[in-house]
């Protein structure tokens, strides 16, 4: 059997510091830091500050490209638009690398690209940030008990959204180039890279099999997508009861992208801002006439699940869930998406 070696190289762990320094000359590097225990991505100045053995960040990566609050345009008192272009003040001369991203979060960015970049018209604010950012992900060897990526067609070694993916081996990293931009990055460090051998590939495959073994496959997402075709199913009546209608699941989710646009006025003019919004809030679809197509939590919960698991596949060809488990961990009433899916699958 010919083992897949194309695009893969080896980096010895002892060369990691040099690798980092070479990268840092050309790119600004962000990664999980020792200071927050891997809770967030911060600017990394030295490889010792990196905490690569972490589960996942608290908030997802979407804030880098689609921040909570974003000024779309500013205007003066005479209704003249004074700033309408994508964030001009954030001119960067150096590209950034998000280093050590989990494959689920990188896949989520791949989905958000479909919404903001590939769907016409493209969103200039997102595109500007995305075009100057590269993603180097780290395959998961020790998933959390709340991870369920393999149930949603993602995985500990998913390559979507990443430019390069690292696999940790004993004493080395297996580094796989995925995109053109990834190739450019590796060009700059090629003197540190060694050719990959079959043994390395076998070691990597074994670690991924072990990781997948830890990730129990809870459901087969393609069956769930089909099950959801029954919009008026009776099980929606009970599933929403615990839900308090807060925005935690939406805001923590790496693929949720709903937003609101609001005008603010200051003395000398004002601005239009974009902020995160959630379909779980009652005001989300409230018409000025008072009519609300989704009047109760039942309709809103159904919308959230349908949008992720039935509408998104029809619009973008992808289920908008990467199984990161943040919604499961942070829901204040422990309304577990995994149980909801299982309950629905069990219904007639």
């Amino acid at each position, binding site marked *: 059997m010919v083992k897949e070696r194309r695009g893969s190289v080896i980096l010895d762990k002892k060369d990691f510091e040099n690798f980092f320094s070479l990268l840092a000359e050309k790119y600004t590097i962000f990664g999980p830091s020792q200071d927050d225990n891997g809770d967030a991505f911060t600017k990394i100045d030295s490889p010792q500050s990196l905490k690569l053995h972490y589960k996942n960040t*608290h*908030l997802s990566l979407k804030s880098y490209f689609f921040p*909570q*609050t974003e000024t779309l345009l500013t205007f003066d008192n005479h209704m003249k638009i004074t700033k309408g272009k994508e964030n001009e003040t954030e001119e960067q001369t150096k590209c950034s690398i998000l280093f050590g991203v989990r494959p689920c979060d990188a896949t989520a960015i791949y989905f958000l690209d479909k919404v903001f970049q590939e769907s016409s018209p493209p969103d200039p604010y997102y595109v500007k940030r995305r075009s100057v950012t590269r993603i180097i992900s780290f395959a998961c060897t020790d998933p959390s*008990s*709340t991870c369920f990526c393999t149930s949603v067609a993602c995985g500990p070694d998913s390559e979507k959204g990443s430019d390069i993916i690292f696999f940790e081996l004993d004493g080395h990293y297996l580094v796989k180039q995925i995109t053109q931009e990834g190739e450019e990055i590796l060009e700059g460090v090629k003197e540190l890279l060694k050719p990959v051998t079959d043994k390395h590939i076998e070691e990597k495959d074994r670690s991924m099999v072990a990781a997948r073994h830890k990730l129990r496959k809870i459901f087969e997402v393609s069956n769930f997508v089909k099950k959801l075709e029954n919009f008026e199913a009776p099980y929606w009546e*009970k599933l929403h*009861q*615990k839900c*308090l*209608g*807060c*925005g*935690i699941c*939406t*805001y*923590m989710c790496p693929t949720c992208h709903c937003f*609101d646009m*609001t005008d*603010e006025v200051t003395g000398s003019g004002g601005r239009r*801002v974009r*902020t*995160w919004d*959630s379909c779980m*809030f009652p*005001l989300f679809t409230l018409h000025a006439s008072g009519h609300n197509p989704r009047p109760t939590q039942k309709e809103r919960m159904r919308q959230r699940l349908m949008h992720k698991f039935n509408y998104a596949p029809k619009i973008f060809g992808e289920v908008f869930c990467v199984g990161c488990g943040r919604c*499961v*961990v*942070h829901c*204040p*009433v*422990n*309304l*577990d998406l*995994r*149980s909801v899916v299982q309950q629905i699958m069990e219904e007639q």
Partner: protein
Amino acid sequence: MKPSEHEIINTVKKLLADKKIDLFIGYEQGTLPLRTSPCFLVNPDDSNKLIWNSFCANNLTVYLSRIMPNGKNKKFKRIGILCKGCDSRSLTGLIREKQIKREDLYIIGISCQGIIDSRKLLPQLNSDEILSIDEDDDSIIVKLKSGEERFKRNHYLYDACLNCAYPTPGEYDMLVRTAKYAPQVSVPDPAVKEFMGKPREERWRIFEHELSKCIRCYACRNVCPNCYCKECFAEQTKPTWFGVTSERSDLLFYHLTRIFHQAGRCVDCGACVRACPMNINLRLFTRMLVDEVKERFGYEPGLSIKEQSVLAAFEIDDKQEFMTEPEKGT
């Protein structure tokens, strides 16, 4: 199964079977370690799902004003609910503020030994697989894959529980007693006292720092039984009170206003802190007002259904030292 759990299940089964209640809100096993989840029962046979342990954290009364808007619910005429001490004070508050009617409820009260903070206990388990959890008056006994470990209960309680003076519900139709305990005297919270002892600039710095983590998910509001407004001030557009962003001034405005809306009403159940995904110490500030109201007006909300809202009434001997007389100088 503990006797208290048994008692709850049998009572609820009978209540539902005899049609004395149409719905029961209690706790069921959660899907995550050290978590439980609210559960809604209409079928007497489902009563076996109910549990009671030191992880039953949620304040279930938050559902009452949603399910029974102003006491007019056609589907569920009488609702049964399981209340700990703090929960029953929230419930009394809802009755006091005319959001629900006492006669529409069947309250099963349960005296609580304090709820374990899973965020404090979980790191002690080193991600080891949990096989089972048990508890006695003194400890939580966790059977891990690597062996059994005992954790002293008092070291892992929620901050709100450490200072709890009312663990037994005051208002109930039936009371389930769990264990012997010595009720505490209501005292000002030590953490708040320490905070108030700091200089003003330091207090503001701490306040700003904590709240800068906020992402405006509104979980603190949605999980609070006192936040039942049909249209929250945070979302009004006519007029727009403040901005919708996650920038400093908007965050401070939202939280300051919400905290003050709780004055004289908050029972310090801790639901807001538990819900916050960013681990903001919201309790520090709401508890500050709880202690201040007690000090100024000798009032703690939720102790009797006959009480009046403290800020909706006044007494002749209310302290007024903050009033100034311009001629005499401030």
